[in-house]
């Protein structure tokens, strides 16, 4: 279901280009008698104006041996002519055999790649880049106005264990791999545009070769980390009533209140589920890309969305359900990158609040030990639970009812 929802969002982004491919602008068949049914000057001009041209007069004109059975004896091509064969190759309907054992190898010409290339080098890089720069700018602005979130109470010198070794280990496997994947992914996406012109194509080539190697292999560590944090923390991240109060007071990030929270507060739950949802989607599309053509995701997803009428809800024509193997990979690549940009922006905020943004926050993932004062300010309910576990009185205990002396 998640995959379907994600695919819908992607398809919205790609509406114009994808939908155009299936649409025909002109309902009446143009007069092509002057060229004997072949492409006319008007066809060419229409294409150059960026209009969608009905190419069925070429796409379907790939020979019909059954029309003249005797023609099969006429020559090596039988009833077909060279132009018909080339048209069949052009539109992917030729009977191609190849020694290469991947499904993409029999598609010799596919023009579905142009909109992908344009989208990848255009809106994806532009909006993705600005999203990250905008997030960094907003965090700097926030730091300059709000400053570091300090611990209000005096430090007690007593600590509680916030995260065990295995929890911190999983966090850093996930975080370390994500940073590597983020940088190498950005290099691969943007290197040709922003590195090669300044540092040279040789440098860019070497960097991107190394980036690809790192990206493809570190991916497994990311997936392992993702599974580990999911298993260990999912029960602590189920939304509950305390989150409402937490959000109502903006988590103490804005203002001076420090709402009570369990092991994970509302904001951390947002981060957790973002990592799980976006990270999971990135992992699934990434594995699809790691094993090209073997794990296609989009044709089936689009078919499902069409079946439930989802494109119609937003006024779209049905999504394409017949995708070439290469188009499957193009969708997977775009989806992978879009999800990654969103998660990178979220993780930037996470890194900020876990380091320079909040006094004492880093200790939770550094040594795993946090001062009771910090724990009381940010996770008071959890602190009391921990104190009770080790036999200490809870900090926020309400005075017990005094039983009158008899």
């Amino acid at each position, binding site marked *: 279901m998640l995959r379907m929802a994600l695919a819908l969002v992607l398809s919205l982004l790609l509406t114009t280009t994808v939908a155009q491919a299936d649409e025909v602008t002109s309902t009446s068949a143009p007069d092509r008698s002057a060229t004997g049914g072949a492409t006319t000057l008007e066809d060419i001009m229409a294409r150059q104006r960026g209009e969608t041209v009905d190419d069925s007069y070429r796409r379907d004109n790939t020979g019909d041996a059954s029309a003249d059975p005797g023609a099969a004896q006429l020559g090596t091509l039988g009833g077909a002519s060279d132009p018909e064969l080339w048209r069949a190759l052009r539109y992917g309907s030729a009977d191609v055999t190849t*020694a*290469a*054992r*991947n499904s993409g*190898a029999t598609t010799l010409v596919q023009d579905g790649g142009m909109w992908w290339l344009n989208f990848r080098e255009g809106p994806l890089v532009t909006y993705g880049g600005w999203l990250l720069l905008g997030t960094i700018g907003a965090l700097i602005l926030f730091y300059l106005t709000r400053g570091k979130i300090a611990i209000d109470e005096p430090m007690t010198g007593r600590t509680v264990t916030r995260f065990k*070794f295995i929890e*911190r*280990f*999983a*966090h*850093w*496997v996930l*975080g*370390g*791999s994500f940073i*590597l994947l983020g940088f190498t992914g950005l290099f691969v996406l943007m290197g040709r545009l922003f590195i090669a012109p300044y540092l040279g194509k040789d440098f860019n080539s070497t960097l991107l070769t190394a980036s690809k*190697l*790192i990206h*493809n*292999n*570190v*991916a*497994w*560590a990311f997936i*392992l*980390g993702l599974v580990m944090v999911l298993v260990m923390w999912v029960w602590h991240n189920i939304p509950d009533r305390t989150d409402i109060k937490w959000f109502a007071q903006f988590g103490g990030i804005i203002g001076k209140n420090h709402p009570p929270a369990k092991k994970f507060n509302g904001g951390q739950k947002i981060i957790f589920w973002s990592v799980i949802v976006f990270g999971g989607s990135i992992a699934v599309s990434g594995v699809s890309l790691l*094993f090209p053509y073997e794990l296609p995701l989009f044709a089936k997803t689009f078919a499902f969305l069409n079946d439930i009428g989802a494109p119609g809800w937003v006024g779209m024509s049905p999504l394409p359900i017949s995708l070439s193997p290469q188009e499957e990979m193009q969708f997977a690549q775009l989806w992978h990158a879009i999800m990654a940009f969103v998660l990178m922006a979220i993780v930037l905020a996470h890194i900020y609040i876990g380091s320079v943004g909040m006094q004492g926050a880093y200790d939770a*993932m*550094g*040594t*795993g030990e946090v001062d009771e004062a910090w724990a009381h300010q940010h996770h008071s309910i959890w602190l009391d639970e921990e104190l009770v576990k080790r036999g200490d009185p809870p900090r926020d205990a309400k005075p017990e009812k005094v039983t009158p002396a008899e």
Partner: protein
Amino acid sequence: MKAMLAGFAATIVIAIAANFGLAEIGFSAQDRYSSDSVRLD
């Protein structure tokens, strides 16, 4: 800090193991993309 370094070390170990491991069990691109009759290096 130890957990962080252990996490980073594990990431590197997993990446190296994945790179050589997948090639070893026949998941290199050249293995996947060629038929049995193709001689690979």
